[in-house]
């Protein structure tokens, strides 16, 4: 089986690599690109810990082959904060609202919330719950995660209004 050449943009940086076609995107990100923010939870496309943003879609990277992502523009949790290192409003909201306990699901939760708020900047609580229904958290009971996303939505709307 022959390796394939892949080229993609990850967190704004263009990368080129050779890869075995059976490499899953999550393994490529974590092991070849040293981007260990996205986690492997269930490895069966249920838990959402491996969620990354591909071409404007939230995707479970444990269920995508690296070749399928060839040519795409990917944002992982490492690319969410501002270039100067200050936290994104969603990250800050998770911090302020105790939106995590063990933190294992958090990269997936934040990456998913990032896309959700782009598509629907002012979601209701129900819309948030449906919006993150592909992300499992075994600690929080979701209460503070939902609260964090609500807070981030308000913060981002205020910022937009000020601009």
């Amino acid at each position, binding site marked *: 089986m022959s390796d394939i050449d892949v080229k993609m943009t990850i967190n704004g940086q263009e990368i080129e690599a050779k890869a075995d*076609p*059976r490499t899953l995107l999550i393994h490529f990100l974590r092991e070849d690109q040293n981007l260990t923010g996205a986690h492997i939870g269930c490895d069966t*496309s249920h838990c959402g810990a491996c969620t990354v943003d591909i071409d404007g879609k939230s995707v479970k990277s444990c269920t995508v082959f690296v070749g399928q992502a060839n040519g795409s523009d990917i944002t992982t949790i490492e690319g969410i904060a501002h270039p100067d290192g200050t936290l994104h409003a969603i990250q800050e909201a998770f911090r302020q609202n105790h939106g995590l306990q063990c933190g294992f699901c958090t990269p997936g939760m934040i990456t998913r919330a990032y896309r959700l708020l782009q598509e629907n900047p002012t979601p209701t609580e129900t819309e948030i719950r449906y919006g*993150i229904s592909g992300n499992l958290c075994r600690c929080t009971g979701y209460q503070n995660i939902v609260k964090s996303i609500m807070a981030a939505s308000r913060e981002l709307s205020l910022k937009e209004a000020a601009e």
Partner: protein
Amino acid sequence: MIPGSFDYHRPSSIGDAIGLMSSLGDDAMIVAGGHSLIPMMKLRMALPEHLVDLQDVQSLKSISIENSQITLGAMVTQAELITSEELHEICPLLREAALQIADPQVRYVGTIGGNVANGDPANDMPAIMQTLNASFTLVGPNGERSVAARDFYQGAYYTTREDGEILSSIHLDAPTSGHGSAYEKQKRKIGDYATAAAAVVLTLSGGTCATASIGLTNLSETPLWAEEAASILVGSSLDRETIKAAAAAAKAITNPAEDGRGPIEFRKHVAGIMVERAIAKAHSRAR
């Protein structure tokens, strides 16, 4: 979990894809969104030597509506189906059903073509397509043919699609304006397959049911089109007794497996309830 090794191909036209499938033979498989196939490959229950990815075949990606005729390209994702206002306007059943499939991440990637072609009896769209009397276009080395959704499914993961053929599009007529439809799905949690699910499309004429169609998901080796159950509704006022009788007729053709979703009797029982609820909801939505 690491899948077995394979060579990866990404043709840019349907012709090239069919050519590849012919030349690569039995060991090649088509991948659309991959959210059914890749988990099977990780379990080594699917071991293709070649994967032919259709993502660059632009001709498979459009939703087109002319008059009331709907054509869905096989590579249209569930998310695209959900966000199409034009489609929702004339056939709201599609959005209602698609929103009950898996979760947002899976719907961004999962395609309508994959959902109907795979032949998994737990998939939701096959019964929807049977209810709407859709037909599937299959393209292969010997040209193109059309198969009715009601004739397409032969067993679990076994359909009339031949090796080397690609399901390229789905065609259906939007139900008559004023129709009512509903998809009721009982599942243990978000993202789960149905314990039982029922789709109903019906039209009314002066208070009585003029036409009806009922489809059932995950209650047999194939999706089920409950023809007799629907015929019981036609001509009635959709009163409680008639709805009960139709639900009983639908239940009678089910043959669910006993699994984590419950024993056979329970799943049949839930099937009846889903049919009753879907009829009542479709009725309330019909004009």
